[in-house]
């Protein structure tokens, strides 16, 4: 298994603290509030950690935005104690996307290029043609993505599975995979938003041909951002973080489902700037070492820290390459 480090510019603090992210969080929390007040919506209790399977009663509970979460003492993953059903989650996301469709989407070209280069370099290293890729719902999350693949990904055919309410066992997803018969699957924004991520991964495993390569990304509970701030992190939007996997947790889940882990990395670029902003704005908050570290940090020190976190698999985003 390889553990690459992805190095890039540190983003500007506005990327995490601007008006747009704040409005996004507000809308998602509004949707969550409505969901919690609706007595007809069914919620499912999670009796064990969705990553490593440890019984939930062993895992401490905490609340964030009126939702209860647990931190698994076995694998360090964070997960919602109970979740709405998949179709409800999908419907809420579609409403969110529709509500913001008219707003400027921002330039995500660097993110798109990073995903495309990830696939290209992996293809070269695996010495295996990945010439047919199925995108799982990212095109709905990022409307400019299909156009980017057309401009920048010339040697690959792309299919896009758009976000539509699906059943708990992802029957729609299974059918789409069977029809597309991809050599690779890209799923950068689903795992932490799924009611049952194991069911989602099982659907990929069952429906894709053996040897299919899965490029998956998610938030990472081992990241310094979550280790220090936990659910207080500005990127912890409850409906988008129903499961925040640790590396150990995700590896355990993958192994349980019979997926081979080819590569793991934590290419997150935001831990340092998120923590920098947090400690510089919350003057009363004191955590040994870290408070003074961030209050005295300049841009170079933040960059050095972020690279160290990436090299140590301790940043807030994880990427896995799996093989069915």
């Amino acid at each position, binding site marked *: 298994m390889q*553990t690459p480090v*992805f190095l890039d510019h540190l983003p500007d603090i506005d990327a995490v603290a601007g008006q747009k992210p704040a409005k996004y969080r507000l809308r998602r929390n509004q949707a969550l509030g409505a969901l919690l007040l609706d007595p007809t919506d069914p919620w499912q209790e999670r009796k064990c950690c969705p990553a490593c399977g440890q019984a939930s009663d062993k895992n401490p509970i905490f609340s964030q935005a009126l939702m209860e979460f647990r931190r698994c003492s076995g694998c360090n993953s964070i997960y919602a104690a109970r979740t709405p059903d998949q179709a409800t989650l999908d419907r809420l996301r579609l409403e969110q996307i529709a509500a913001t469709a008219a707003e400027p989407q921002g330039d995500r070209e660097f993110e798109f290029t990073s995903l495309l280069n990830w696939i290209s*370099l992996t*293809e*070269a290293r695996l010495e295996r043609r990945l010439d047919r890729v199925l995108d799982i719902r990212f095109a709905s999350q990022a409307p400019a993505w299909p156009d980017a693949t057309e401009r920048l990904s010339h040697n690959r055919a792309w299919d896009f599975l758009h976000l539509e309410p699906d059943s708990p066992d992802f029957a729609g997803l299974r059918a789409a995979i069977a029809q597309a018969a991809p050599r690779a699957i890209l799923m950068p924004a689903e795992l932490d938003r799924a009611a049952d991520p194991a069911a989602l991964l099982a659907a990929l495993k069952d429906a894709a041909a053996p040897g299919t390569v899965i490029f998956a990304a998610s938030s990472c509970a081992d990241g310094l951002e979550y280790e220090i701030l936990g659910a207080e992190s500005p990127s912890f939007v409850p409906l988008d973080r129903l499961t925040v996997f640790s590396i150990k947790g995700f590896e355990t889940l993958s192994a349980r489902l019979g997926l081979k882990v080819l590569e793991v990395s934590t290419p997150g670029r935001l831990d340092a700037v998120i923590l920098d902003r947090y400690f510089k704005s919350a003057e009363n908050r004191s955590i040994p070492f870290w408070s003074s570290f961030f209050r005295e940090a300049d841009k170079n020190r933040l960059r050095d820290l972020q690279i160290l976190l990436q090299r140590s698999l301790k940043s807030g985003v994880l990427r896995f390459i799996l093989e069915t």
Partner: protein
Amino acid sequence: MGRIRHDAMDRHGGFEVVVACDTALDPTASVPMVTDPMAVYDYAPDVIVCSVPNMMIPDVVCTALERGKHVFSEKPPGRNSADVRRMMEAEAAAQAAHGGRVLKFGFNHRVHDAIEEAKKLIDAGTMGDLYFMRGVYGKAGGPNYAQNWRNDPALSGGGILIDQGIHMLDLFQMFAGRFTDVQSFVQRKFWTDVPVEDNAFALMKNAQGIVASVHSSATQWQHTFRLELYLRNGFISVDGILSASGSYGTEVLTVALNRLDATGSPIPNPESQELRFTEDRSWDKEIAEFHAAVVEGAALRCGTSQQALDVMELVEAIYAADPEWSTTRQQTPQTATE
């Protein structure tokens, strides 16, 4: 080196070391030992592993081949291209007389993990055409530098370039084929009490216009291995090389594909990926390839006699391209050129 090879053979299996030859007998040795090189043939080996100083390599290799043995020899392959040609003739004669004899030289850098990954990236076509390469390989002399046989040209054939820089040149030729145009500066600056170079700088171009520059140094006080390859769509670099001493650091492969702006022009400083390798598997891979060649008749990919000749000719071209050094060298009485 012999012990390193022995350990690799033990790990691989399929080899039984029947005798070892050294300048002195080791009473703790686990295998029979001799001090006379010809005495090893009393043990009827199938394979000779040749870990001897450069000037002895041709004789040991040719004798073994004449006796129908398979041969694995350390680099450099002798002291000059004439030595290699002599061994190639013996190889051809052994093929004719015995069939299927294997001669492999230990250019292990080709099979270091980071180098193999770089080769895969280039061979896949993802990175586009190769434009140029830069290589730095250097160390800080070494203990008893002046007394070391490696710095006696009669025994070694040259200084830091033929001893260590030859690996970088071999990698250049693995990535780009043979270089035809060569310019160089060869110097002796710090270790002035020895008649070999302590620094060699060369600029080379091949028939396809790929340019490479190398700096091989014995005054690189911070041990350094760095290979950079620049291609149409991005770049690859390898920093550090795993070695027995560990002094060149871990191997870090960095690769980046360019990001393009709306006009299709590359945006500077693209996102890069670092891959770190911490285990030197090159010895095992070399032995595995040698075993497969001997036992299964598999073709050698690394360390063939042709590759040895190509790289030795490049070493000579670099020495010859600096007229000042070339003249000095010819005037040095100890220099042996067969």
